[in-house]
């Protein structure tokens, strides 16, 4: 029977080509509008460390102004001071801990005609790579000892190794930055955390830094942060030492805690630390320490732009219009076939047989709409890419994966079946006699 109904469906669809095209196109356009925005949102809200979401925590302490919270109503600052970052890092009370910030250096590639260029550099500590599961292609990161000895070492991204060393095994080779030489310790595999969860302060989609240097080197070299620095109280003096000793926040701190009890213990440790600092005259606000998982942190920092949410709500309404359109057209089609239906009913077709027949027909329109919808989604994403073409990260936000493709088809079929329910019900409730009577 199923194949017979399929055949009937095809015949009925072909009987009204213009109308069927309109229905398929309406579903496809609605799906395309919805799914292209959903895709962008899906990429934007991705959690690159979802597999470690239960063990990684972003650390916040409230060292802010007693009269004015960092953010209303009572949010602690999103970064920590140098004083606190280093004290907490040295205490080593978490399973792993890392403190880091973004800065920049001028890279001077070897070779006579190679031109120097400026690059963003992440100054960080040894645990960074293990905590965030950063994959290495060659060599490895530095160990905790290098955090102390201030050895001049670097880790490069795959692209940077390609750019500087032509993709060769560069481990052990030397690299010059700001007229100082560094030894290459390791090269990463392709690593593109989107959003850049560990530092959401500037553009969350700018991608990871291409060069990693020990935190301690950056501090002794007096490299200022190229990310955000916020101060509620000005440093006592204009030099780097005053910057380090100030209440200015510019460092991102993360810890890895393997269990709820480790988390509780660490929270207690943070509270004790702040209490101790209070007795030294710092931390004038009430105790307000926070540990947030990567997922919580991204929600807290609102990595999804409001515009995307606005567009999503309009796109959903758009799909509603497209479906209302389809329901109306299907209904009209059914109404016009009232005669056939009552004839079939009079000849003994059961309601469920009619239901199967019309729902299969609608399902076919749904599948067609879904397939065309994938194309529409792809076009929608290309459209978004072209209007945002000046953003160099836009390509990452408009990439479709299989989840989204399957989602588009599923949404189309569900929508088409949903749209078909009422017209089909109307078809089934046509009585055998009424329409035949007027013939």
């Amino acid at each position, binding site marked *: 029977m199923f194949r017979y109904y399929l055949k009937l469906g095809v015949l009925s669809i072909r009987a009204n080509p*213009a109308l069927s095209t309109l229905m398929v196109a309406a579903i496809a*356009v609605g799906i395309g509008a919805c799914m292209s925005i959903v895709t962008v949102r899906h990429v934007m809200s991705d959690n690159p460390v979802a597999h470690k979401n239960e063990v990684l925590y972003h650390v916040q302490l409230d060292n802010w102004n007693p009269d004015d919270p960092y953010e209303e109503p009572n949010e602690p600052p999103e970064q920590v001071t140098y004083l606190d970052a280093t004290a907490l890092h040295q205490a080593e009370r978490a399973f792993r801990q890392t403190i880091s910030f973004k800065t920049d250096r001028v890279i001077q590639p070897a070779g006579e005609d190679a031109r120097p260029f400026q690059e963003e550099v992440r100054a960080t500590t040894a645990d960074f790579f293990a905590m965030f599961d950063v994959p290495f292609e060659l060599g490895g990161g530095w160990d905790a000892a290098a955090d102390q000895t201030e050895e001049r070492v670097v880790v490069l991204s795959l692209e940077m190794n390609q750019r500087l060393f032509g993709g060769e095994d560069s481990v052990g080779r030397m690299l010059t930055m700001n007229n100082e030489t560094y030894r290459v310790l390791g090269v990463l595999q392709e690593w593109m955390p989107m959003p850049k969860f560990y530092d959401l302060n500037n553009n969350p989609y700018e991608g990871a830094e291409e060069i990693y240097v020990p935190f301690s080197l950056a501090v002794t070299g007096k490299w200022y942060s190229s990310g955000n620095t916020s101060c509620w109280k000005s440093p*006592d003096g204009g030099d780097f030492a005053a910057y380090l000793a100030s209440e200015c926040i510019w460092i991102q701190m993360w810890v890895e805690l393997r269990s709820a009890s480790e988390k509780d213990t660490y929270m207690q440790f943070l509270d004790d630390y702040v209490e101790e600092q209070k007795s030294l005259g710092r931390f004038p606000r009430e105790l307000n320490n926070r540990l947030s998982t990567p997922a919580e942190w991204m929600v807290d920092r609102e990595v999804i732009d409001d515009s995307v949410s606005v567009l999503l709500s309009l796109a959903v309404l758009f799909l509603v219009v497209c479906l209302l359109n389809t329901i109306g057209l299907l209904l009209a089609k059914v109404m016009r076939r009232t005669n056939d239906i009552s004839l079939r009913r009079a000849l003994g077709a059961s309601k469920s047989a009619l239901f199967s027949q019309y729902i299969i027909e609608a399902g076919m329109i749904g599948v067609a709409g879904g397939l065309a919808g994938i194309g529409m989604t792809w076009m929608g994403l290309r459209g*978004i890419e072209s209007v945002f073409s000046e953003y160099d990260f836009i390509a990452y936000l408009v990439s479709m994966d299989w989840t989204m493709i399957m989602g588009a088809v599923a949404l189309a079929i569900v929508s088409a079946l949903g749209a078909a329910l009422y017209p089909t019900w109307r078809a089934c409730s046509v009585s055998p006699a009424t329409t035949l009577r007027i013939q």
Partner: protein
Amino acid sequence: MDIGPIWRAMLKNKAGFVLIALQIAVTMTIMVNAFAIMQERANNVSRESGIDEANTFALVSVSFDEYDSEKMKVLIDEDLALIRGLPGVRNAVATNSFPLRQGGWSMALQLVPGTQTADAVGSAVYFVDEHGVDTFASNVIDGKNFTPEQVTWKPLDDNTWPAYGIITEALGKELFPGEQGSYVGKSFYINENDPVNIVGVVERLQAPWEGWSGVERSMLVPQRRSSEFQRYVIRAEPGYRDELMPQIEEMLANSNKDRLIRDVTTMDEVRKLAYLGDTAMIKILAFVVGMLTVITGLGIVGLASFNVSRRTRQIGIRRALGATKPAIVRYFMVENFIVSSVGLIIGGILSVALNIAMVEAFSLEPLAWYVIPIAMIALWTVGQAAVAGPARKASSISPAIATRSS
């Protein structure tokens, strides 16, 4: 044409008309809200930054030799002398940022010394010398520009701020609310305890962050900073910008090998990037509204055609009983007008409801009232245009049809 019979006929086939009315209602909801957002974004984009955007460009010089502040001061002076000496350059300044750049320096200003309070007013800060006002094309509406004596190099180990400032009028209004008269000669505190005397007021100079609510608040500070990182803003004489850009880049790159020149950008590019989100949103929404109108229009055409073919016999009977062609056309037009009106009334309510929800959730600007009647007129027109074709087809049904059995 009597509305009564048409209305009663519609009640016989409620579902079909309810669906169109709903479709029109939701279409209107999207249209109105999309239009409100487009209008808000368009207003953002049309704001002036205050600088002479058509003739201004900027570049960055990064020195990577071992840092020596005295050598840096010499280099900066040399650079500026070279740039200002070129024919076609109107003026140039070394500063930290410029309007629309999206990154910069902000400080809290207050009328009493001491730790920052909740009443402090945030302002963008541009560090400049006496060439800053002209380079930024600022119109000094009160007081005067900095004198060369007021401009100082920032000492390395001292954080005290210069005692002079030029503020925008918007900053003055925010700092001294309700006060009449000139802001010149008044003072405020920066960096907790450092007093600043206002020597001049400029009409307009935006902060670097276009998305900030205080975007019109900025101040010029007569201080030069000798860091390795220098941002030069250059204002060309009209027509000279494009030839000066590569010329100056080349000149600076060659004058000192221990630095690199990057980010050579025109203000046009800076503006484009700053408002990319807004312009993209306008384009996307315009496209959505266009598509939506097409789909709704085609839907109306499809349904009306159906109705016409379903009612072929009745139409034939009416024609046989003496109804004129225009009367048949009018029937479908009025029918569509009624459905549209019901839809648009529901749509008006839904539009306002969605707007309230969006204003609440995404802090958008509330809708301007006149958008609603505009959307109504637009959709009425679309509906009438869509139904016109099928209606004309209906009117051409021959009266003889009535005599045949269906």
